[in-house]
């Protein structure tokens, strides 16, 4: 086999980030503890510059050929398309916001060691690779880079039992899921003779997909994906890890990795195993329904806001799956409906990203000076302490509950529309009924903030930067609610293949 120098250009952002990680690693060894903020700004620079590079590369490829699905490089292991660029852009943005939210929080708890920043960057790099992977090996590489960084981050507060326990739990279950994923990949390789996703798709198309091994492979791969997304019944780790991890890490786990996992699900299921759609559609249906039911019901019983948001996240992921499974419609023409459904799932995950960032950002805002605002009760009387941020939190909660003018409603609307279009009325009604139950616990937060008296009259303290980013984050939820069209169009364009 002859050696070819691969085309590095499509992977510029990733290569840049990897180089910067090494550079920052070097810098940190020479820098005094007092100058910690240099690391922070270097990280922010890296992330923002990566977004710029992503944009450049995307433009370049779009200029060459407007309808291309992909530029493949590294012998087909790596794909560049607008779907990936969009997701990677949001991942970088989310990680940058996460770092901003976590900065003071981590510093106050003496957790802002350079490792924290480096692991966050590694995690971002892992996610980017995962999103662009078109081969099982790159996919696994990205996934593990992301996951290992996250395991470390969860346990970063190593003197705290909760944190280490959560890290351990996450690691054991995560490793198990990775094992299952690998097992499934090996089966698919055995059946099709390739690990390249488009190659697999072609083989399945040509030779039929009714082989038992293929279906087994599908099941195992799906388990791995479901674990990363955190959908029922592979959700056990979610509440415990969210609760145990330092809140600044919880922001990270709950946000960008969900996008990466969504990308993985999309690439494997839609790009790779589309000939098995009738099988995985059934499976996703069960996963989605179970997630929406259990997530919403369990969230009611929580008094810890991080656990509550964890369960709410589970139900939101159920909605994402609903969008993903509505793409295949037996009777009707495939093309338009499929893009519609997938873009609704994509739109939903981006909307969820904004909302989850904002909600945990609020939790961080309240947990100042070593005090952890973990309980819903800690939001008591927030309206008296800070009417502005009470209003902001209210927007987030109503958006998550799917009440209009906010982005959460339009996300739910687009998914429900796809579901109804695919003819699954019962699923739509189920999702709707569960949304009402979901509204109950979101409303409870609003109730606590507005209707109860505050026990802690202290005004909120936070840096201007924190407040500004949080406010922008939340105003974006409201803004993209009114202008949801723009974001939906972008999502739909990204999926035009």
């Amino acid at each position: 086999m002859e050696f070819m120098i691969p085309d590095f250009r499509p992977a510029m952002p990733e290569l840049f980030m990897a180089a910067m990680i090494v550079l920052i690693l070097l810098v940190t060894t020479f820098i005094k503890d007092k100058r910690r903020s240099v690391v922070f700004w270097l990280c922010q620079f890296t992330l923002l510059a990566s977004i710029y590079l992503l944009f450049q590369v995307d433009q370049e490829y779009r200029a060459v050929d407007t309808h291309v699905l992909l530029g493949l490089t590294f012998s087909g292991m790596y794909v560049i398309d607008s779907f990936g660029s969009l997701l990677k852009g949001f991942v970088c943005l989310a990680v940058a916001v996460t770092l901003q939210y976590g900065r003071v929080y981590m510093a106050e708890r003496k957790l802002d060691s350079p490792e924290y920043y480096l692991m966050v960057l590694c995690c971002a790099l892992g996610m980017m690779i995962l999103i662009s992977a078109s081969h099982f090996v790159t996919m696994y590489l990205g996934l593990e880079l992301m996951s290992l960084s996250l395991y470390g981050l969860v346990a970063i507060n190593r003197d705290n039992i909760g944190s280490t326990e959560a890290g351990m739990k996450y690691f054991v279950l995560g490793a198990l899921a990775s094992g299952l994923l690998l097992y499934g990949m090996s089966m698919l390789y055995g059946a099709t003779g390739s690990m390249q996703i488009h190659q697999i798709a072609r083989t399945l198309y040509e030779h039929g997909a009714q082989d038992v091994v293929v279906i087994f492979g599908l099941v195992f791969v799906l388990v791995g994906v479901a674990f990363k997304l955190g959908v029922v019944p592979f959700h056990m780790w979610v509440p415990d890890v969210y609760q145990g991890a330092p809140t600044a890490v919880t922001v990270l786990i709950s946000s960008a990795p969900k996008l990466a996992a969504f990308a993985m699900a999309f690439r494997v299921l839609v790009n790779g195993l589309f000939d098995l759609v009738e099988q995985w559609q059934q499976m996703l249906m069960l996963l989605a329904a179970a997630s929406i039911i259990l997530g919403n019901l369990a969230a009611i019983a929580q008094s810890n806001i991080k656990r509550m948001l964890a369960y709410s996240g589970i139900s939101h992921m159920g909605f994402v799956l609903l969008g993903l499974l509505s793409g295949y419609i037996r009777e009707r023409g495939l093309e338009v409906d499929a893009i519609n459904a997938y873009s609704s799932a994509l739109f939903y995950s981006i909307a969820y990203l904004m909302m989850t960032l904002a909600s945990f950002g609020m939790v961080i805002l309240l947990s100042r000076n070593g005090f952890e605002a973990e309980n819903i009760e800690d939001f008591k009387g927030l309206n008296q302490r800070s009417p502005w941020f009470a209003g902001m939190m209210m927007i987030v909660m109503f958006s998550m509950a799917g009440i209009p003018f906010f982005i959460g409603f339009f996300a739910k609307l687009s998914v429900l529309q796809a579901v109804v279009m695919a003819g699954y009325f019962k699923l739509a009604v189920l999702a709707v009924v569960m949304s009402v139950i979901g509204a109950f616990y979101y409303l409870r937060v609003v109730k606590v903030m507005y209707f109860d008296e505050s026990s802690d009259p202290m005004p909120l303290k936070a840096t201007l930067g924190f407040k500004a980013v949080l406010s922008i984050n939340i105003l974006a939820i409201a803004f993209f609610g009114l202008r949801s069209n723009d974001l939906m169009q972008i999502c739909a364009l990204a999926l035009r293949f």
Partner: protein
Amino acid sequence: MTGVPYLSLAIWIPIVGGLLTLASGSDRNAPVARLIALVFALAGLFVALPLYSGFDTTSAAMQFVERSPWIDRFAIEYYLGVDGISMPFILLNSFITVIVVIAGWVVIEKKVAQYMAAFLIMSGLLNGIFSALDGILFYVFFESSLIPLYLIIGIWGGANRVYAALKFFLYTLLGSLLMLVAFLWLFLEAGASFDILQWHQLRIDMTAQSWIFFALLASFAVKVPMWPVHTWLPDAHVEAPTGGSVVLAAIALKLGAYGFLRFTLPIVPDAAHNFAPLMIALSLIAVVYIGFVALVQADMKKLVAYSSISHMGFVTLGFFMFNAIGVEGALVQMISHGFVSGAMFLCIGVLYDRMHSRQIADYGGVVNTMPKFAAFFMLFAMANAGLPATSGFVGEFMVILGAVQFNFWVAFLAAITLILGAAYTLWMYKRVVFGEVANEHVAALKDINGREFFFLAILAICVLAMGLFPKPITDVMHASVNQLLQHVAVGKL
């Protein structure tokens, strides 16, 4: 028609005003907040007036139409317009907002800016509901109007306010989400369109019509509220502050009834005919049974809340008899009820501000200390009971006339309300106002001040004017109601 987007102005002026009021900050700036609120409420009323003066009463078509794309992906449009059915409600709503702002002027002492802002935003959203001609736009306004009302009940309400606010929110949310699924189905059937007027022309088979009918019913019945999903209303009313009760009774209850006219009847006429006996039965239960329930209430607000349910039963009864006089009577009843129930709640609010009690038993002989108030209260109580020459009479009489055309026994049962309404209202009035001065608190009562006199007098004028000369309002409705009934008479199967 002029190029001025009056509908948009009627929606967005109050909302912008609400946001500005919020910006005035803490209670130290309360006078500023009040002033901003009043200015914007008046501005909202002012831009709503041309809707009446510029209205073409001969046309049943949508007027003041504004249309521009909003969300292209789902063909959702920013599509506004009013006809004779919806236009009066925008006026009513803008008017009631002014009254509510004045009524809450000094009574509300904490979080004044937020209070005023909630009412202004609410007012804009309600105008949006009445003028939306796009299904999703309607839904968006319909749902988001829950937020301010939830906060109004929960923040400024009485002791059990949290329970009431939550019950109100979840009841309505469940209903409206089922409606959303129906909308999505209609969207597909209509060939990817949320245009309500286009939905009116859709041909739908009977099974689908039944499903849609019940999905819409789930939403509107809760809002009206019809028996047996009415239980949130007494709770919400009792716990809400006076202004909240007024908006709830005067406007929010009308949304459900409006929904029947805008969606249920024209979109699924065959199902509506098919299930009309059910609807009439539910309406009659509301009229008669809830009337009896009102009779035994010890709490004044609860009594008026139950009387509202009973009156709204009249409205739904009028709709589902499918004759012009019934539907028009129901519409008149809706508007009249807006004035009368609003005024009743304001009267109770006047008493409550002084005594901090709503229990009938705590009062007695109020006429001795508050003669001016007693006179106003008398007028509104009479209107509530449906006395001729008040607005309450016109609507009820028209609906009963319609019922006589439809079926004698329905008319007979409906007419019972005239007796029951008189019984519970006047009995309450007697116990509260007449008799000996009950206790030293009542003896210490002061009569209404200039501000209270002002808003009660305005409402009294409205009630009397509508009772004596309802023609300006019925004229506006004629064309639209006739067209609606012609449309409904033709099956879609």
